[in-house]
């Protein structure tokens, strides 16, 4: 049976898919079997496949400039989407008038929240495809235009009239928790709490010979993939095909289907070559809008962020405010560690499906005490809303932040104790069979090997004690 989606798609002039099907060795691939070679020569080719440094499957296409990324796909009649975003970081939307934009020659459609069948996204259903009543940060999408050229789409987007009532906004997570702060969702700006309790930190501090306390901060960071957010949707039979470089095509499929209020079998998401992800292409911040425009116009629609939009409207890394307090014995054992974390999640929870946007704080809290045996650990972590970009998953969500604090703090303690940095860490480092503050028993622990091998390669001991 021919998949109707594929058939349609080929009819629409399907470009060549990325060349996955050519096999890992690219076009040089001519099976030795097909050449009539005997199986005898295969031993060398099959042994040690695990552990072998072979180039990426698409390396040949990439260096030849032949690898097709989403923006390289061309379809006849393709329209270009431009999204109008909030004028204020926090405001009520009183009225949206798209009539002047629709009058611009070359504009095929302009949509607002009224055109979205199910206008809620993500596991928490807190984000919208297009804002209906309220915007909570400057990246909030309010309306979208599909037009013959990107320039026309931009021009039309500027002509959409939106009447707002500006609301007070808050930009600092500590301010956001104070009484009287503008509230973004529900009754409080507190989005999430994650604690870790192990042993008795107060007892641990009493037993300590030295107590060190320090505070740390990290800023908002951008994934900064060289390819911006991009996707393309085209109508197909009674559904839609979406080309997306997303790291999570199945999550995109689910969100697009739900936004369109159709079953998932009518949405096909074709993963295209990605120009860099790092967690920045996890969320459906473009695809549902494009799918709605494609169905409304009956034509393929491409969306592409400008570099500026990447910073305004794509997800970012959570800033953390971190307080570390540790007690150690004179001999260098860490006896107690009390950590308080405040993460700024921005205007909405992230849309990662498994935890409902809570991944960064959960991981940050769990990893916060570092890979050290500490009998008494207390981590108190919260994530807070502010009127800033949505913080989501970026390469190791939450953990580079806490590792920066933990390892800086650990260094301070080693120096206060007069111990070598590495020796202090080795003394406390996890090894086989240790139990984490959250109750996991560890196995295959190569931590000390990494420390020793790094030290040997770096020449750590040679210069120690200068």
């Amino acid at each position, binding site marked *: 049976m021919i998949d109707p989606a594929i058939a349609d798609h080929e009819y629409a002039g399907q470009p060549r898919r990325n060349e996955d099907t050519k096999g890992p060795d690219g076009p040089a691939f001519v099976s030795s079997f097909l050449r009539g070679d005997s199986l005898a020569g295969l031993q060398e080719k099959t042994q040690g496949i695990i552990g072998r*440094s072979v*180039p*990426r499957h*698409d*390396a*040949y296409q*990439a*260096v*030849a*400039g*032949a*690898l*097709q*990324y989403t*923006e*390289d796909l*061309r379809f006849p009649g393709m329209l270009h989407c431009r999204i109008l975003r909030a004028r204020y970081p926090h405001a009520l939307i009183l009225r949206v008038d798209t009539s002047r934009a629709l009058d611009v020659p070359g504009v095929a459609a302009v949509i607002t929240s009224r055109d979205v069948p199910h206008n809620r996204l993500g596991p928490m259903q807190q984000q919208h495809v297009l804002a209906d009543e309220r915007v909570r940060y400057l990246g909030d999408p309010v309306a979208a235009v599909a037009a013959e050229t990107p320039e026309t789409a931009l021009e039309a987007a500027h002509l959409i009239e939106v009447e707002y009532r500006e609301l007070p906004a808050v930009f600092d997570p500590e301010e956001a928790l104070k009484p009287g702060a503008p509230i973004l969702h529900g009754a409080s700006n507190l989005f999430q709490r994650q604690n870790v309790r192990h042993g008795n930190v107060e007892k641990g501090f009493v037993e300590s010979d030295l107590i060190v306390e320090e505070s740390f901060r990290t800023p908002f960071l951008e*994934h*900064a*993939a*060289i*390819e*911006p957010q991009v996707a393309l949707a085209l109508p197909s039979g009674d559904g839609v095909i979406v080309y997306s470089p997303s790291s999570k095509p199945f999550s995109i499929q689910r969100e697009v289907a739900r936004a369109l209020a159709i079953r998932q079998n009518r949405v096909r998401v074709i993963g295209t*070559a*990605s*120009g*860099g*992800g*790092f967690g920045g292409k996890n969320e459906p911040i473009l695809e549902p809008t494009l799918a709605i425009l494609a169905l409304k116009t009956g034509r393929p629609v491409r969306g592409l962020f*400008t*570099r500026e939009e990447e910073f305004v409207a794509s997800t970012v890394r959570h800033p953390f405010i971190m307080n570390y307090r540790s007690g150690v014995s004179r001999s260098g054992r860490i006896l107690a560690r009390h950590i308080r974390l405040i993460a700024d999640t921005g205007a909405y929870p992230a849309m990662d499906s498994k935890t409902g946007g809570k991944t960064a704080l959960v991981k940050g809290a769990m990893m916060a005490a570092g890979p050290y045996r500490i009998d008494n650990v207390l981590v108190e972590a919260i994530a807070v809303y502010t009127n800033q970009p949505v913080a989501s998953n970026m390469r190791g969500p939450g953990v580079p932040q806490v590792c920066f604090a933990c390892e800086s703090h650990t260094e301070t303690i080693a120096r206060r104790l007069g111990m070598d940095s590495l020796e202090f860490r080795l003394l406390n480092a996890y090894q086989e069979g240790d139990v984490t503050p959250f109750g996991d028993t560890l196995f295959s622990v190569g931590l000390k090997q990494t420390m020793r091998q790094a030290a040997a390669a770096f020449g750590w001991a040679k210069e120690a004690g200068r």
Partner: protein
Amino acid sequence: MKISFTVNGRSQELEIRPERTLLEVLRDDLGLTGTKHGCDSGECGACTVLIDGEPANSCLVLTPAVRGRHVLTIEGLAEDGKLHPLQQAFIDHGALQCGFCGSGMILSAKALLDRNPSPSRAEVRRGLAGNLCRCSGYQQIVDAVMDAADRLREVR
């Protein structure tokens, strides 16, 4: 306006609006999508092409400015279907991950090696300073360029 120039050795005569950048014309009119669109303001280098042998950000070049000139894009680098030594070295060293910076990176490297066939690693890094890569940490790119330099010197 009517613009004639050469792209990858083939002459082109196009009727275009002057506000179209070389990047747009290469990608949209000539279908040469190997040249990438990353920041649109000359900061990332993904759109690097060689104009008369010198690397330039094609997003900053208005198309009329290249009339009569020779433009080389990544699609024109392989000869008779055989990869340029730089391209082969990029494959062998795992220099690219997502690959999006690759076209510009390879062309910058070509201009560098054309001018300086035996660069130091520091010179390679300086020569590639205008090509941002977020995946690789650059080292395997530098390895590839040094290796390609060796291969090219052997050919000479």
